[in-house]
């Protein structure tokens, strides 16, 4: 592959740029449409740039949905969930990676096996449990059940296994208890992996749809995604596309901004861990 790359670089760039265009185009189209007056046509390649841009559609969406509240809900659920999963997954990953305890391998295999069972199977009982706990329509329902995930522990273990055992020993000689070994020695040295896992978790939770659709039962408690999903039928049966696109832009943009800030921690750090095996 390398040889081909050196001989043929322009072709590589053309193909990569084409794919970039394909990746970005729907998003540009979305933003462009959201700025169009509802009277303007949305089809046709020439209508990519709105003739007379307007922010009216954004005002209309804001009038239709409690967007501020929905955004706040998404933010609370995503950030609390992310904080919990980063902490619990790295702690468990540390235990699996750096301790030798009876039953470790069986427990870890069991953990991996849980990934094969789709959580949707238990969706009816999960709803009943949430109802019994009085967690329907609360943030707890979305934060707690997935506070520690198998895939997160797997990634963290892959990464933390490489942490030098001698440093841990030294820490113990200096009088560190086990939790402080984790907190003060291990955690600071694995921040790239933590950041990568945090980015992935935050994206997944922000974009989550089925669980909030099921467990959030009032417009005020909807997350942004559930709220946006009802947009097409929010104004009778046919909300104009530019108004819908204003809504989706609001739902997508914050995350894209976060992504651009955090892109240096991209998943590469973690995926490398998965590959090292």
């Amino acid at each position: 592959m390398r040889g081909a790359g050196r001989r043929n670089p322009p072709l590589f760039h053309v193909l990569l740029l084409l794919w970039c265009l394909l990746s970005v185009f729907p998003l540009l189209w979305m933003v462009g449409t959201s700025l169009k007056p509802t009277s303007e046509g949305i089809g046709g390649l020439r209508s990519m740039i709105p003739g007379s841009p307007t922010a009216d559609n954004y005002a209309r969406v804001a009038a239709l949905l409690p967007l501020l509240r929905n955004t706040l809900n998404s933010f609370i659920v995503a950030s609390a969930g992310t904080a919990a999963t980063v902490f619990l997954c790295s702690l468990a990953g540390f235990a699996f990676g750096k301790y030798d305890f009876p039953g470790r391998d069986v427990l870890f295999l069991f953990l991996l096996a849980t990934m094969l069972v789709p959580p949707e199977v238990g969706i009816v009982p999960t709803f009943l449990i949430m109802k019994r706990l009085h967690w329907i329509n609360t943030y707890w329902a979305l934060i707690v059940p997935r506070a520690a995930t198998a895939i997160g522990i797997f990634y963290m273990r892959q990464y933390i296994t490489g942490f030098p055992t001698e440093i841990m020993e030294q820490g113990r000689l200096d009088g560190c208890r086990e939790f402080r070994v984790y907190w003060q020695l291990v955690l600071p040295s694995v921040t790239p992996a933590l950041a990568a896992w945090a980015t992935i978790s935050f994206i997944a939770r922000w974009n989550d749809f089925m669980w909030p659709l099921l467990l959030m039962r009032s417009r005020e408690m909807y997350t942004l995604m559930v709220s946006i999903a009802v947009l097409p039928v929010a104004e009778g049966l046919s909300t104009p596309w530019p108004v819908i696109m204003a809504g989706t832009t609001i739902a997508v943009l914050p995350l894209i901004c976060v992504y651009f800030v955090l892109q240096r921690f991209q998943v590469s750090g973690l995926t490398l861990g998965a590959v090292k095996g």
Partner: protein
Amino acid sequence: MRHAYVFIAPFYVLFLLFGAFPLVWSLILSFQDWDGLRPMKAVGLRNFALLLRDQRFLDAAANTVLYWAVDIVFILTLALFMAILLQGNRLGGKRFYRVVLFLPNVTATVAVGLVFSMLFDFNSGLINSVLQSLGLHGLPWLNSTGLSKIPVMVLNVWRVTPWYMLILLSGLQAINPELYQAAVVDGAGPVQKLVHVTIPSLATVLFFCFLTETIDSFRIFTEPYIMTGGGPGASSLSIVQYLYESGFTVFKLGYASAIGYVLTLMLLVISAAQVFSLRRRGSVVGGGTG
């Protein structure tokens, strides 16, 4: 040593409460007839028998298998292709490409689902206006039983490919360059290098991708829910969508649980077949199990 158990305990406690317990309860429910209000009625295997004669379920199952097959072929092929391009590109811009190419995976399925619905719209969608400007007829992408699965698949491939592209890229970076040099000495061209060095070296990573994407695509829900509502008819309905509908729209809780168990069974059979076929070929399951 006791610390270790405390450190890993949260996962197992949460799994017990919100994973295993619902799973067992769901199994019990699958043998009951229950609407959530009146007393349950034990009906043995009747829910499963009904499922096999329920055309809507059979359609949903067939659609889901098709989503899986098409998605996995397109996603993994494209992801490998893009990863090779990224790896082979020595002119720089690597970071730029990686950031931009990953963008689709950051966007919410709900939001881009609506965007793609607009692009595939019969009257005002971009895709039909491009077709018409080429002198072709616009097609009722979202409103015909024959075509409605296509937009769902396009969205899924667009959104998920970048994820596997990154994983495969890490895999490529881990390949020993000497293998390529040796291949060149033996007179291998680009295609032979791909077949004899790249793909064998990526075997475990590809297996990991295959398994995780199989599980994910069998659970497809949001794409058809947003774009077509599963319709027209049941032409784009997925299994999880039908599960959700049975449980929370028509309140056939036992029936919904039975659907869930059929889905699990399908997944376990396919995963087992994958692991088995890999074992037979004598490879090591390194990427999957660490």
